[in-house]
C-alpha cells in the first residue's frame, strides 16, 4: 500500500507541474460552459423564458389584422416589435434593406387594405350563406366576385431556422383566423339585424376555448425550469472528464518512452500497482473537475446574466453519477493509452474519438434533433448515458433509482475498458516501448 501511495504522490507532482495540462482539464471546459451557455441562451431557452427577439413591423393596413398581429406578438412576450429605426417609421423598403444587411432577422409587412379585403370577402361569403335562407337574391350575388388574396410579406435572414420560420408564420396565421372569425361573427349579426329587425344581436364577444398550459413533469414536486445552463454544465463536464484521455495517455506513453517504465519494470513493484495509482489520481482529477464545473455553474454563470445551475435534489445520486462517469472516462483513457504506441497516435485518436463520442452522445446537439438512425447510434456512446443520467438528476429531479440504468451501463463500460487494457497488456509486455 505504501508503494501505491508513493506512486500516487508521484502522479500528483507530475500533474501539478503540467500547467498546460491543468489548463486543458479545468479552464478550457469552464470557458466552453460560459460561451456555449451564452450562445445557446437565445435558441435553447425558447421553450421557457425567451429573450425578446427584435422584429421589424410595417403596418400599412392600419386596421384589424395589422393591429391584431402586432398585439399578438406583443402579448406573446417573445418579440420586441419595432416600428421605428432611429425614430424614423419603418417602411417596406427600409425593413427589407435592414434584414438584407443582417441588422434584423425578421421583418413583417402587412399591406394596405388587407383587412378591408378580408372584410369584403367575409361579407360576400356571409351573404351567399344567408341567400340559402332566402334572405338575398342569389342572382344578385352571382355577379359579386371574391377579391384576390393579399400577401403579408415576411422577410427572413438566411440564418433563421426553418422551425422558427414555421412557428412565426403559424402565429401570424392564428391571428388572421382570429380576425376572420370575429369578422364572420360580426357580419352575420349585422346582416341578420338588417334582414330581421326583431333580431337582437347577443352581447357576447368571441373567445378562444382551447387554451394551452405548459408544464415540465419531473420526479420531484418542485418544478424545474430547463435552460441552457442545466444542459451545458453537465454536458461540458462530461466532455472535460473524457478529455482527460489526452493527459492520461500522454502520461502513460511518456513513462514508456522516457524509460521510467523500463526502470520500474526491474523493481519489486507490480505493474498493476503503478497503473492503479494513475487511475486513482485521474479519478480524483475528474471529481475535482466536476466540483469546479458545478461551482462555475452556480457562482460564475449568474455573473454573466445566465440562470444559476440547479443541482437537483439528490446529492448522493449526483455523487454516484459523477463517480461512474469519472470511472468510464479514466477507463477509456487507460485503454487508449495502453493500445496507442506513440504520443501522436494517442493525441489524435484520443481527441477525435472524444469529439465524435460527445457529438454522437448528444452533448452538442440534443438527441431529439437527430435523424432516426443517429438516435439509435447515439445510444452506443457512453457520453449519452452520462448526459441522460445528469438530465435525470438536474432536469427531472431524479434520485438514485432513476439513474440506475445509466450507472449500470457506465460501470460495465469501465469494466470493459479495464479488461481490454489487461488483455492487451498480457499480449504485449508493458515494458516494451
Amino acid at each position: 500500500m505504501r508503494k501505491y501511495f508513493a506512486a500516487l504522490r508521484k502522479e500528483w507532482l507530475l500533474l501539478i507541474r503540467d500547467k498546460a495540462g491543468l489548463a486543458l482539464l479545468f479552464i478550457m471546459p469552464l470557458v466552453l460552459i460560459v460561451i456555449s451557455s451564452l450562445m445557446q441562451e437565445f435558441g435553447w431557452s425558447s421553450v421557457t423564458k425567451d429573450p425578446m427577439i427584435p422584429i421589424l413591423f410595417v403596418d400599412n393596413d392600419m386596421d384589424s389584422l395589422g393591429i391584431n398581429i402586432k398585439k399578438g406578438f406583443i402579448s406573446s412576450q417573445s418579440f420586441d416589435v419595432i416600428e421605428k429605426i432611429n425614430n424614423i417609421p419603418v417602411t417596406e423598403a427600409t425593413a427589407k434593406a435592414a434584414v438584407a444587411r443582417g441588422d434584423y432577422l425578421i421583418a413583417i409587412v402587412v399591406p394596405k387594405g388587407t383587412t378591408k379585403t378580408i372584410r369584403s370577402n367575409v361579407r360576400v361569403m356571409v351573404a351567399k350563406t344567408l341567400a340559402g335562407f332566402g334572405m338575398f337574391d342569389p342572382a344578385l350575388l352571382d355577379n359579386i366576385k371574391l377579391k384576390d388574396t393579399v400577401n403579408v410579406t415576411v422577410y427572413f435572414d438566411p440564418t433563421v431556422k426553418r422551425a422558427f420560420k414555421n412557428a412565426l408564420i403559424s402565429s401570424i396565421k392564428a391571428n388572421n383566423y382570429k380576425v376572420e372569425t370575429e369578422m364572420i361573427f360580426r357580419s352575420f349579426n349585422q346582416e341578420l339585424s338588417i334582414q330581421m329587425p326583431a333580431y337582437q344581436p347577443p352581447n357576447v364577444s368571441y373567445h378562444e376555448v382551447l387554451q394551452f398550459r405548459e408544464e415540465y413533469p419531473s420526479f420531484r414536486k418542485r418544478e424545474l425550469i430547463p435552460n441552457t445552463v442545466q444542459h451545458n454544465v453537465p454536458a461540458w463536464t462530461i466532455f472535460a472528464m473524457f478529455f482527460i484521455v489526452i493527459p492520461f495517455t500522454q502520461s502513460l506513453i511518456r513513462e514508456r518512452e522516457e524509460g521510467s517504465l523500463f526502470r520500474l519494470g526491474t523493481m519489486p513493484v507490480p505493474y498493476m500497482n503503478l497503473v492503479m495509482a494513475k487511475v486513482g489520481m485521474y479519478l480524483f482529477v475528474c471529481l475535482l473537475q466536476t466540483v469546479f464545473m458545478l461551482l462555475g455553474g452556480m457562482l460564475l454563470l449568474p455573473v454573466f446574466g445566465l440562470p444559476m445551475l440547479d443541482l437537483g435534489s439528490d446529492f448522493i445520486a449526483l455523487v454516484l453519477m459523477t463517480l461512474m462517469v469519472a470511472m468510464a472516462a479514466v477507463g477509456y483513457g487507460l485503454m487508449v493509452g495502453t493500445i496507442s504506441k506513440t504520443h501522436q497516435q494517442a493525441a489524435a485518436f484520443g481527441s477525435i474519438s472524444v469529439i465524435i463520442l460527445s457529438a454522437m452522445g448528444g452533448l452538442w446537439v440534443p438527441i431529439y434533433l437527430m435523424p432516426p438512425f443517429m438516435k439509435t447510434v447515439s445510444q452506443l456512446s457512453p457520453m449519452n448515458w452520462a448526459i441522460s443520467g445528469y438530465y435525470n438528476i438536474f432536469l427531472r429531479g431524479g434520485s438514485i433509482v432513476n439513474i440506475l440504468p445509466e450507472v449500470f451501463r457506465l460501470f460495465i463500460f469501465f469494466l470493459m475498458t479495464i479488461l481490454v487494457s489487461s488483455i492487451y497488456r498480457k499480449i504485449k509486455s508493458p515494458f516494451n516501448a
Partner: protein
Amino acid sequence: MPDSPIIQIRDLTKVYKGAEEPAIKGLSLDIFRHEIFGLLGPNGAGKTTTISILCGLFKPTMGHVTIDGLDIHADIKEIKQIIGVVPQDIALYPTLTARENLTFFGNMYGLHGKPLREKINHFLSEFGLEKHSGKLIAKYSGGMKRRVNLIAGLLHDPKVIFLDEPTVGIDVQSRVEILNYLKKINQEGTTIIYTSHYMEEAENLCTRVAIIDQGSIISLGNPKGLVAEHPEFKNLESIFIHLTGKEMRDWT
C-alpha cells in the same frame, strides 16, 4: 578467479514473436561474485535482451537462470529486490526534482522515511549534487542526469547491478566520477554487469568480458588475457573488430 557464481545462465534462448532468427541462442555463462563483468557486442548482438531477461523484463523462450540462487521464473520478486538496473536512457521524470525522483524510486524498493532520506543525502553528496537536489531533472546537464540515473539504481544497496552504457554522452569528469564509484562499490562487494561500446573503458574496468554476436558468446575471458591470447592485436577494440567484423550494425 573470484568467488562462487552469483549468476548462472544455462542454454538461454530468446525468440521474439515473428522473428526468423533467435535474439539469443543457447547462451550459457557464469558470472562470479564481486566481478565487474563486461557484456560487449555490436548493435543487435543480444546484450540488451540478455540483460532484460536477467532483470525480469522478458521471459526467455528456453533456458534457465539463477541469480544468487534464486530462480528467474519462480523468484522474480525476490530477484528484483537484490538487483539494481541503470538503463542506457535517462529513466527519470524530468518534471520532478532529483530528490523527488530518488524518493519515488527508493519507495518502489520498499525504502521509506529517515533511512531513505539519509541514503539519498549520502548519494547526492557523493556525486556532488546536494546543492542541486531541489532542481527539476529537466534543468540538469547531461552529466548530472547520468549521475542521478546511476544513484536511482543503487539506493537499495543491490548485490548485483546491471549498467547499460552508463557513461554514454557525458563529460570526462562525470565519466571518471562514475567509473571510480563503480570500482569502489565493487570492492565493497557489489557484482557489476556492464555493457558498453567504449572498449578501452571496458578493458580498464572489467575483470572479465564476454563478446557476444548474433546471440552467442564468441569470446570470454579476462581483457588482458584476451589481448595476450591474440598477440597480433594490440588491444580489446582490435580483437572486438576482428571477431565481430567491420560492417556496420545499425539494426537492433
